[in-house]
């Protein structure tokens, strides 16, 4: 034990003795080299057709842009749905409140695949809606809206009774109280998880490939079928998703830290 911790001591990061720059840099370099070597040994025979896949870069690009567009639209729409649902859940009008509860609980209890299949082959077909992308955005928004409604509801619940009392005491009406007192506090609370939800939407949008929406996963799948180059198609696929989700997740962490310091 004693020898191990002296010779490998540089790699340890402990509360009393944090790792130095050398330890961190060396760890990273060794791991990158090690895992790369491992991948190369295992897969180098299967990865030979980068040129073939490169021909399809436009397909990738279009898919990626579609994923971004669909996710952004779904984020905006599901935030609206979430807000309306969260308010409806607090409505004194019971039919409205129950509708909101039923929507949230149903959607949160179903896998997204089920919603996509049912929404597209069931509902959209029956109603004659042809626009796949619009239907896809709608399904994704309904799915994500249920989760956002819960985030906003938690945010509203976290605004204490004394805030409502203070708002009434100074003479604000209900709508003013929501607009000037409650929602600004909810927004600050909800922004970090909302950014996290954006990352979920981006990932979840990949499921839309099963109804033939030409987003990123659909594109990669297409390239794979055309070139028979699985790795060369799916490695860029992963990289493209990470290029979107990592910054969003960093943003969420940053927002979370900022909110924590402020309160």
């Amino acid at each position, binding site marked *: 034990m004693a020898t191990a911790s002296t010779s490998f001591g540089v790699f340890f990061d402990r509360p009393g003795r944090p790792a130095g720059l050398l330890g961190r840099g060396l760890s990273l370099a060794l791991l990158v080299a090690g895992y790369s070597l491992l991948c190369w040994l295992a897969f180098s025979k299967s990865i030979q057709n980068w040129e073939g896949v490169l021909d399809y870069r436009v397909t990738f690009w279009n898919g990626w842009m579609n994923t971004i567009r669909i996710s952004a639209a779904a984020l905006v729409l599901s935030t609206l749905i979430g807000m309306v649902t969260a308010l409806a859940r607090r409505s004194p009008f019971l039919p409205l409140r129950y509708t909101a509860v039923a929507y949230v609980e149903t959607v949160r209890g179903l896998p997204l695949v089920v919603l996509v299949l049912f929404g597209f082959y069931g509902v959209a077909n029956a109603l004659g809606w042809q626009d796949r992308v619009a239907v896809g955005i709608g399904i994704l928004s309904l799915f994500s809206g249920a989760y956002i409604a819960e985030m906003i509801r938690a945010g509203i619940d976290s605004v*204490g009774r*004394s*805030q409502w*009392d*203070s708002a*009434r*005491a*100074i*003479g*604000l*009406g209900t709508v*003013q109280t929501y607009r*000037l*007192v409650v929602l*600004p*506090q909810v927004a*600050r609370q909800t922004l970090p998880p909302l950014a996290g939800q954006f990352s979920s939407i981006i990932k979840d949008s990949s499921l839309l490939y099963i109804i033939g929406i030409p987003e990123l996963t659909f594109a990669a799948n297409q390239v794979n079928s055309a070139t028979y180059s699985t790795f060369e198609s799916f490695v860029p696929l992963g990289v493209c998703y990470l290029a979107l989700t990592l910054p969003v997740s960093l943003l969420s962490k940053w927002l979370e830290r900022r909110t924590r310091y*402020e*309160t």
Partner: protein
Amino acid sequence: MRVSLDGVVKAFGPQRVLDRVVWEADFEHALALIGPSGGGKSTLMRLLAGLDTPDEGRVMVDGKALPVDEGALRAYRRGTGIVFQSFNLFPHLSALENVILPLVHVHGMGRREAEGVAASFLERFRLAGHGHKQPALLSGGQRQRVAIARALAHSPGLLLLDEPTSALDPEMTSEVLDVIAELRDSGQRIVLVTHEMGFARHTADVVAFVDGGGILESGAAAEFFGNPKKPETARFLEKILKY
């Protein structure tokens, strides 16, 4: 100013906190409500503030019964100022914005004018230079003074203070009490719930003892403290003044 309760009942479940209270108080400057914790002081304050309505009976201020529907009550509340014991301020707004908000959104004042009024109130309560800070960055005493500034900025006829110093340490308590005494001397009408007996004695014209489902005793401050008539009052004063 005259405050009266006419057969007022306020119950929470089976517990009748105010049980057919008939009471009247005439005071020029300040009325103090005292009594043990859980005695019903805040319940009475919330009725006087128009934040709650009695289950039975009427609350009258200057001979007029307070309304019972929320719209009319809101209009009534616009003519009062209220400060609670605990955290009153909106945490997402700076001290100055806290004072400005009701001026602009409730009292229809223009933004520029409201800024001026709010700044002058903060200055009056020795908060100049703190206006840009969020409540979390202020001390407890500073927060309560901002809350008082917010309650006063629209010049309400009546200021209601429910234990404004109970959450504060002694030094901050005297900061806030100084401000209240100054307000009283400048003619502001005040109803105050407090455990600071010395302060109640010096500041209030009339003191009322709230417990046991109603007002057990009330009267002019000097007499109330000097010669309490009910044994319950005497016992309470003895206990609270022991140390």
